[in-house]
């Protein structure tokens, strides 16, 4: 098997990896904010429910969550819901990743929001701003700056975590490399796959460095 063939096959899997990564971010970033509000609400039942949920998701392995999302509907209720989709395995993985990462993001948001001083809220209040205006024009912009470092950490972890989707047979780049291994008895594509992650994360690191620099026009 030639280098170019291996590259093409790995690229195929890498497409899935990138798609899973991108869609997880697209859905988990706003969902995380929603969960964050839930875990900070004054309405106690909702707050406890949300915090218990976050505890469960953060307290169990993502791999098990993939299993639960994908297999449990079929096993307990005789209804393999993801078989309705052409790429149901990918959808199941996406659901599990979005839930898992939204919970992690929600805690980062919460830390960021709680780090904003009471004085900022009071300054907005005496200037007659609404709660929405206060949050979106004063709190959130400052939260964004504070959470860039922990977020970039989590997002880089996500890139590598996507390879867990192969436990429910989503054909990502590692799965593709493993297949080459079992079909062609070639080991090196597995390490070659690592280079894809390395380059991708290298680009992300540059991007986050750029964002941090962009946001350094003010200090708190």
């Amino acid at each position, binding site marked *: 098997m030639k280098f170019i063939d291996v590259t093409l096959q790995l690229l195929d899997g890498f497409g899935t990896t990138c798609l899973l990564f991108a869609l997880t971010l697209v859905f988990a970033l706003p969902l995380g904010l929603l969960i964050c509000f839930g875990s900070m609400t004054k309405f106690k039942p909702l707050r406890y429910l949300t915090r218990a949920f976050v505890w469960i998701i953060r307290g169990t392995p993502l791999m098990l969550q993939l299993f639960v999302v994908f297999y449990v509907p079929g096993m307990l*209720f005789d209804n393999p819901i993801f078989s309705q989709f052409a790429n149901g395995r990918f959808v199941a993985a996406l659901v599990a990743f979005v839930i898992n990462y939204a919970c992690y993001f929600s805690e980062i948001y919460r830390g960021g929001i709680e780090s904003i001083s009471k004085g900022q809220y009071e300054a907005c209040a005496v200037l007659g701003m609404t709660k929405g205006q206060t949050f979106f024009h004063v709190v959130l912009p400052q939260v964004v700056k504070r959470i860039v470092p922990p977020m970039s950490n989590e997002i880089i972890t996500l890139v590598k975590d996507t390879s867990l989707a192969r436990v429910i047979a989503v054909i990502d780049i590692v799965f593709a490399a493993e297949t080459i291994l079992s079909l062609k008895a070639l080991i090196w594509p597995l390490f070659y796959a690592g280079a894809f992650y390395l380059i991708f994360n290298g680009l992300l690191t540059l991007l986050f460095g750029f964002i941090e620099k962009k946001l350094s026009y003010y200090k708190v």
Partner: protein
Amino acid sequence: MKRKILAIVLVLVLTVSCIAVFAACSKDQTDAEYILGKKTLVCGITLYEPMNYFNEDGDLIGFDTEFAEAVAEKLGVEAKFQVIKWSSKEIELNSKYIDCIWNGFTVNDERKQNIEFTQSYLNNSQCVVVKAANLSAYTSAAYCEGKKAAVETGSAGETAADETLKATIVPCAAQTNALTEVMSGSADFAVVDVILANSMVGKGDYAGLAVATSVALEPEEYAIGFRKGSDMAEKVNGAIKELLADGTLQTIAEKYGVAGQLIK
């Protein structure tokens, strides 16, 4: 207090509605009715030669591939192939994402308790794979005792290495990983399917390996696994008998070089 009650009610409503949504589609029917009804037989496979693999044009071929297609045709359904993780095969089966495990699946007593097997169709055995340089030392099963054996977790090879050879187990995620362990020197030998070994050992990165034919292990058989209690196994048995009688299965076996192991 009011809020506590509200919270409990909220949880209950959520749980009940979830169950209702999931359970809505379940019906009372036998497995064969279910499979024949949807007109597809989804076979759980992993990719390996000569059972299920892609040719140069990217088409899925192999002995099990063509065999399954032939059986499906007889039963009036379409054979579909779903690549799975071998370690998840039972959960895939029970959650109904696949209808059967059709991928060189070794029959044994433990598996029989949870899986409905069809009649066996191929003879197989486990074999010991070592570095070619060490081949001469492996003259008998006794030599393997206490050495490090790389095996796929949950495979027939693990049972053989543990009970027959009395080796120390090095667990691996796949049979090919077991071969890699031997290559890297972290295990002394691997115990894998002879059919797999014959198609991989001596090739590519496994060029430095060899099958220790002097170490004899119990023979075993391949069959197709259905959900426990499924009436589909019986229907497939009927189709296999027809395919044996008209020579179709013999032709497929010859094409993939396993005619010698075919059970008639």
